[in-house]
């Protein structure tokens, strides 16, 4: 009896507390961010959180959106599809107006349907796999390019470099395999020979067996489509073998740690294609963002994927500022969006929710291990 009374009393208290809390909540706009705060991609996720919370604080310091403060609800997806599904469910129940994130196509894919069923706008960030926007989900957008756009840009860079025999290597992730397949198609169309196509296991330390085999195929250039940790190890061990074939990569290589891992000596001459980082851009938004970021974190952003999360916040903020709080209306508004200035260039979406515009650029690593943006065309 006693226990039941207590439970009832507790329940009543909770109800009162909730009742008191909910009017307070209505004064703020809750926005979901899903990112890998733990796990393999924790450094990406922590950057995503840093960047988006910096922008949210800026919005709030300027008086919020139409007088309402923005509250960021962050959920950790651990870079793992299973955890991502749970994180998405939590966000769907957290009363947010839209969800930003996350890093990794497979991880985003696991959360896509859950967020779609909750009827929320979902703006993907580091998720370039083609099929994410080919499913026809009306509320899904992304601020990163698609693999086929990147595949075409990569093939163009290879053709421009005058390479005739290409070795393609991916890491079995849906992102890297997608990019490798798209590049292969574009390269074959351009008449470039693919002398090698295989996949390595990410997270390992020793890639000498793979490099020994690659060397036997005698390519002009090695194109590894995976992420920067493995790229760094490949460069380092390639140098150790004394093999000086040029190596290139895609946008997942765009991370300063690549040079740390490989060593400046081994990384020299490595080139990759990627959307440019704010510190390489000369737009007003990029400069302003960079100053604010430096002031708070005493460093510069190291990965473009965290910055596109900032762009995702920018478009959601703009939609909310235009009064589009209903998800359907917001999606409609976003699909009309063109040439909005963002952190990584102009922002705009097409009917499928893909970002429009050309924004791949080539970078090369110089003697000091710095990423140098190569001049366009």
């Amino acid at each position, binding site marked *: 009896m006693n226990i039941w009374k207590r439970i009832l009393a507790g329940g009543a208290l909770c109800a009162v507390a909730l009742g008191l809390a909910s009017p307070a909540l209505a004064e703020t706009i809750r926005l979901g961010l899903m990112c890998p705060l733990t796990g393999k991609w*924790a*450094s990406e996720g922590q950057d995503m959180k840093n960047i988006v919370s910096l922008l949210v604080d800026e919005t709030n310091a300027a008086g919020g959106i139409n007088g309402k403060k923005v509250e960021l609800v962050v959920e950790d997806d651990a870079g793992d599809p299973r955890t991502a599904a749970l994180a998405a469910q939590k966000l769907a129940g957290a009363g947010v107006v839209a969800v930003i994130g996350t890093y990794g196509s497979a991880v985003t894919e696991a959360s896509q349907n859950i967020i779609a069923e909750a009827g929320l706008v979902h703006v993907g960030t580091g998720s370039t796999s083609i099929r994410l926007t080919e499913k026809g989900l009306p509320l899904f957008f992304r601020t990163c390019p698609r693999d086929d756009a990147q595949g075409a840009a990569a093939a163009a860079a290879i053709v421009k470099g005058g390479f005739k025999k290409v070795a393609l290597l991916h890491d079995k992730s849906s992102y890297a395999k997608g990019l490798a397949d798209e590049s292969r198609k574009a390269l074959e169309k351009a008449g470039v020979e693919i002398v090698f196509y295989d996949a390595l296991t990410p997270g390992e*330390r020793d890639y000498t067996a*793979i490099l020994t085999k690659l060397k036997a195929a005698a390519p002009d250039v090695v194109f590894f489509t995976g992420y920067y940790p493995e790229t760094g190890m490949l460069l*380092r061990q390639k140098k150790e073998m004394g093999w000086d074939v040029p190596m290139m990569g895609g946008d997942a290589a765009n991370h300063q740690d690549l040079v740390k*891992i490989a*060593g400046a000596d081994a990384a020299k001459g490595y080139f990759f294609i990627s959307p440019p980082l704010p510190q390489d851009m000369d737009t007003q938004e990029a400069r302003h963002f960079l100053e604010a970021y430096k002031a708070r974190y005493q460093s510069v952003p190291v990965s473009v994927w965290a910055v596109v999360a900032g762009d995702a916040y920018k478009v959601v903020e703009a939609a909310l500022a235009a009064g589009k709080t209903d998800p359907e209306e917001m999606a409609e508004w976003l699909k009309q969006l063109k040439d909005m200035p963002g952190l990584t260039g102009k922002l705009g979406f097409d009917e499928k929710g893909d970002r429009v515009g050309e924004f791949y650029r080539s970078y090369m690593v110089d003697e000091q291990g710095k990423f140098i943006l190569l001049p366009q065309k």
Partner: protein
Amino acid sequence: MEQFFQQLLNGLAVGGIYALVALGYTMVYGVLKLINFAHGDLFTIGAYLGLTLLVSCNLSGLLGPAAAVLAVFVMVGLLVAILGCLLERTAYRPLRKANRLSAVVSALGASIFFQNAVMLIYGARFYVYPDYLRPDFTVSLFGMAVPGVRLMVIAASVLLMLALWAFIQRTRTGAAIRAVAIDQGAARLMGINVNRVISLVFFIGPGLGGAAGLMVGIYYGQIDFTMGWSYGLKAFTAAILGGIGNIPGAMLGGLLLGVIEALAAGYIAIAWKDAIAFLVLILILIIRPTGILGERTADKL
């Protein structure tokens, strides 16, 4: 043919590390019939401690690179060994009499604890060992240019394994360890301090694991807080391949696994490397369910 030998050497270098880590699994299993899932994370801690000692304490500035590496080897080995003992006291000893499953859950918990502790202390970014620590010379072997550091990794792991083998087979303490592995109750009746022997096993195994972590750090340069997982998985596989509980088995299993992987990558397909390695494991376990050198349970270690 040159490619074959090149791949063989690639495999031996990887396999040497697997073998060193596998020893920790196999020794603990031998005396406690427990899979110490936190072993891979002790390996990670070894790599991080090594970097901290080398860089923060500026040992290489004080002693010169070669002596510093040697000194750090000993220090990391000892520190991780002490951590291993503490782990046994806190996570395993209270559960010694409990259901075996409880100890396994405790081991998994310890693994998660260590991994996240490393992430919180050092952060989630990759750390990189300074380049000048790596011996930079090549040796000409049968007409192949082999990086000297790879030979040193193989040599160091073989030396450590031989030292352990001699210790287990030739000393009184080694005999005590073997006795505890065979029958704890009888060993206690013979006047062996079983608790001390178990502590010793948790001293040696993690010590070797930590040293392996340091070797990986120096050789491959890059360390991160999840590295223990993949090495732990492979080393565990190696221990089973050789016959878990059996020390020469762990050495053989580790080297064999490394070589199988390298040859599978070189001659079949890189993407299928792990699948082939595990296929070989399954085939060996079908023919010899106790592993290559595994014998009757009573003869473990």
